[in-house]
């Protein structure tokens, strides 16, 4: 399934992550998945939300540095070897994750 992922550039300062999540929460946007990559100066927050269009526009109008990318979502069965089965399939077809 193809999904929109929202990425937000945030400086590494206290309260910044809270501001993003608070804004989304106040506008009834639900975060389904989240990952955060960071350095000492800045981080990139990647989000999968229920209404990506709305989230993107909302963050943009609130002057966050925000980007959009298309990602592939896969349902992983919650059992030993679940992820490996999917990755194995990609590997056999020489697709790098």
């Amino acid at each position: 399934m193809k999904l929109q992922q929202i990425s937000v550039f945030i400086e590494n300062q206290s309260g910044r992550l809270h501001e993003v999540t608070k804004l989304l929460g106040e506008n009834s946007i639900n975060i389904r998945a989240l990952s955060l990559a960071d350095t000492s100066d800045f981080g990139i927050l990647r989000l999968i939300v229920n209404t990506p269009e709305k989230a993107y526009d909302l963050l943009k109008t609130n002057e966050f540095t925000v980007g959009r990318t298309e990602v592939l979502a896969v349902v992983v069965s919650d059992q030993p070897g679940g992820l490996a089965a999917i990755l194995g399939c990609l590997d056999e077809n020489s697709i790098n994750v």
Partner: protein
Amino acid sequence: MIWNEHYETLPREYLEELQLRRLRQLLNNVYARVEFYRKKMDEAGILPDDIKSLADISKLPFTYKQDMRDNYPFGLFAVPQEQVVRLHASSGTTGKPTVVGYTRRDIETWTELMARTFSAAGVGAGDILQNAYGYGLFTGGLGAHYGAEKIGASVIPISGGNSKKQLMLMKDFGSTAFSCTPSYALSLYEAALDEGIDPKKDLKLKVGIFGAEPWTNAMRQDIEEKWGIAACDIYGLSEIIGPGVAYECVEARNGMHVNEDHFIVETINPETGEVVPNGEVGELVFTTITKEAIPLIRYRTRDVTSLIVEPCKCGRSFVRMNKVTGRSDDMLIIRGVNVYPSQVEGILVQRPELSPYYLLVVDRDGTMDTLEVQVELAEGQFMDRIRRLQDLSRGIEKDIKDIIGVTCKVRIVEHKTIARSEGKAKRVQDNRKI
């Protein structure tokens, strides 16, 4: 000690007579030989003979750093190339340096001025001078070197940096004087402590000659107490001749004597260009009345300070200038390197990923100046890969180091975090207490 008693204590009336004679000579010379000046004077409707008194100098047009840039590299030279025996250059605002040339006589003049400087600081034959100004295109190292040799001091041409070696030689050779930037003097002191050297007990230093960047009297006190030396200030800029334009005497250590037999100094209002009364703060303007290779008429230094006309207790008759308190343009001096925000901007605009909004934050960490360049990502240029962002900031850091010559840290910040201004953009935040 006064190196050149005759000129350095010349009564004001004779000095002013000498200045006028030399000025008129200079004007005739440049009008005949330098197209740039001839054009400029023609445009202003003024001929060399119209200058009949020293006060008439205010009728002459100014010369700007931009003029040197426009005539890069040798357009302002007033002598044929075979008479130029030395070329120096300082960092420019656009990547191209500002070039200065010297005839043999210019080098002799410069040597004389630096001999006066060292003598005034109490250095002479028998002294061992460790010269930690950088040698090379920068005028500091060689300028100090020639002057110190002239007075008969034993010169150690160690150049800047390499603190461990500096300290080893200071100790083993028994250096009695050293010259460098004031901030390096402070960082060298810390290195001495790390090496287990107590400057007051283990070294024979008695005086330091410090310049090439602005410093305060509080910093002077700090240096004097830490090293157990007298710290003398020195002023110069390569366009005028290099170090030795003005120098402090060790007796008073209260303002730098301007070598008025070679330079006419004025202080002006940088906005209107009008001469301000002596004692009032203004931009320093110099006219080089003896320089041969590249004479400058009313050169705008952009350094802001005031002149002291009251006689000094050392007996020199030259007017003194106070420490430079600021700039009338936006140049920064960071660890002795001249940095213009426009140079940084020139590097940033080459990257489409960035917005035109940036801020230079200057601070002092211990004794070292630090520079942080904050810049926003351009709208719609968002990258969600940390690696790319890091490559971007490191690439800028490298370019700034290579082109401007200063180490900095680049911090990419969020959109719209740098203050927008209605009028002139604020590009610099200087947190140094100087």
